[in-house]
């Protein structure tokens, strides 16, 4: 695009639009700024003019920011998109990045933040000059890792699966390290690859990261894929017993692995189908506990639906003797009993470690 960059600013508040316009005009690239106060107007403007960058608010009446972004990303793949919002919700951030936004920014509230915001805008504008394709597509983690390695990239892949966060360090196309909770190296890498869904972000490379993975990418991917296939075959019941590999036969179930997590007092995993029996460990009275867990989870989820306050993320219960956490792990509902005296951080770590055994 010849000439100065063009920025389309979308916010339903006139005052904010005016202010941003003035602030963005101070950028060294002297961008041409157009404003609009609704998603419909923004789409109309994009039809008639070419823009370098679109900065959009998320919470707007009628057509909200995410709706606008999904349309813009599909119709105008070249435009850079930046979201600026007062919403400090990890779910919104993940959804926005999944829609292909280039930058998610919390609305600045201080002079320092404003300066950083302008630097962020400047950086996105500079990136426009770089060539390359982009899009929104669901790819498996294996595909993503292969792509990064084949293109000899240096990056840190941040992968998010619900509350779990993992990182894979890639340097000049070689796997350097992986981290998932307290597990690192090859074991972490293989565990991460068993995740079935999630989001990923490319973070700047960390060349100083100590190398803990020395196997080749292809070898590790092959091992991981084999492990996934074997687990799937066992889960489906399609693997003939005589063909089950010795290693697979000795592999522990998520329940057995969860039982070993430090801080776990008891555990129950309830299938979505209430007709199926729950799996449990360390539970003295499974039936009333299963009934309580299902009723409580369903009751509060219905309440969430009635009041439009989002999904029930977790339920924590405390008594003098016990702590218990209810949360979803894929299709299952987990009821995790926790040892007494755990701090808030230890409690969260225990829950995350248990969850990691079930989401893979």
């Amino acid at each position, binding site marked *: 695009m010849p000439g100065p960059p063009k920025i389309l600013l979308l916010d339903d508040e006139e005052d*904010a639009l005016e202010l941003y316009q003035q602030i963005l005009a101070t950028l060294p690239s002297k961008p041409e700024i157009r404003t609009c106060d609704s998603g419909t107007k923004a789409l109309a403007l994009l039809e008639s003019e070419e823009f370098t960058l679109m900065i959009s608010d998320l*919470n707007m009446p009628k057509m909200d920011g995410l709706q606008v972004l999904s349309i813009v990303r599909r119709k105008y793949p070249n435009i850079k998109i930046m979201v600026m919002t007062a919403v*400090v919700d990890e779910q919104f951030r993940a959804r926005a990045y999944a829609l292909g936004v280039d930058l998610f920014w919390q609305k600045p*509230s*201080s002079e320092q933040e404003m300066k950083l915001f302008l630097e962020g805008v400047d950086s996105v504008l500079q990136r426009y000059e770089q060539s390359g394709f982009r899009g929104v597509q669901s790819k498996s983690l294996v595909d993503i890792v292969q792509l990064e390695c084949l293109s000899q990239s240096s990056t840190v892949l941040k992968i998010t699966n619900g509350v779990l966060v993992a990182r894979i360090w890639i340097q000049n196309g070689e796997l350097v390290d992986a981290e998932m909770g307290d597990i690192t190296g090859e074991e972490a890498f293989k565990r991460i690859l068993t995740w079935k869904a999630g989001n990923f972000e490319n973070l700047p490379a960390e060349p100083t990261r100590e190398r803990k993975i020395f196997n080749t990418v292809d070898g590790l991917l092959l091992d991981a894929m084999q492990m996934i296939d074997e687990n799937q075959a066992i889960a489906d019941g399609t693997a003939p017993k005589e063909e089950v590999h010795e290693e697979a036969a000795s592999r522990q179930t998520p329940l057995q692995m969860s039982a070993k997590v430090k801080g776990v007092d008891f555990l129950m995993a309830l299938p979505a189908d209430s007709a199926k029996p729950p799996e449990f460990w360390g539970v003295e009275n499974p039936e009333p506990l299963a009934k309580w867990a299902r009723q409580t989870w369903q009751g509060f989820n219905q309440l969430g639906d009635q009041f439009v306050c*989002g999904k029930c993320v977790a339920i924590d219960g*405390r008594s003098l003797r016990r702590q218990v956490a209810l949360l979803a792990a894929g299709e299952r509902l987990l009821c995790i009993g926790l040892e007494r005296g755990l701090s808030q951080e230890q409690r969260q770590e225990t829950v995350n470690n248990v969850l990691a055994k079930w989401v893979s």
Partner: protein
Amino acid sequence: MGILDLFSKKDGPAAFEIPAGTFTVDRHGNVLSSTLPQSFPPECVAQIVKPVLESFHGAKKAQLALTEIVIQYSALKITARELRGGAMIFLAPHGPQRQT
């Protein structure tokens, strides 16, 4: 940089908004005291109370005897403390409608 106050938006339109506040109920679900605004209908309060009391009751049967339940939603946190068969319930909404 007072001008930046402009960045903080007023509440956007919402289908229904749960207010922040605290209330206590007896074992039958009758409200004993409340800091909720009067505009918040009693039927809605009853809808919140029902799963809370049921959960405390069910927990006793499962020999959990919980004294506190914290329910985390994307846009709301409910904290309920057991109170001699009843409960003290704290509502703390958060999320986009509160923050923008």
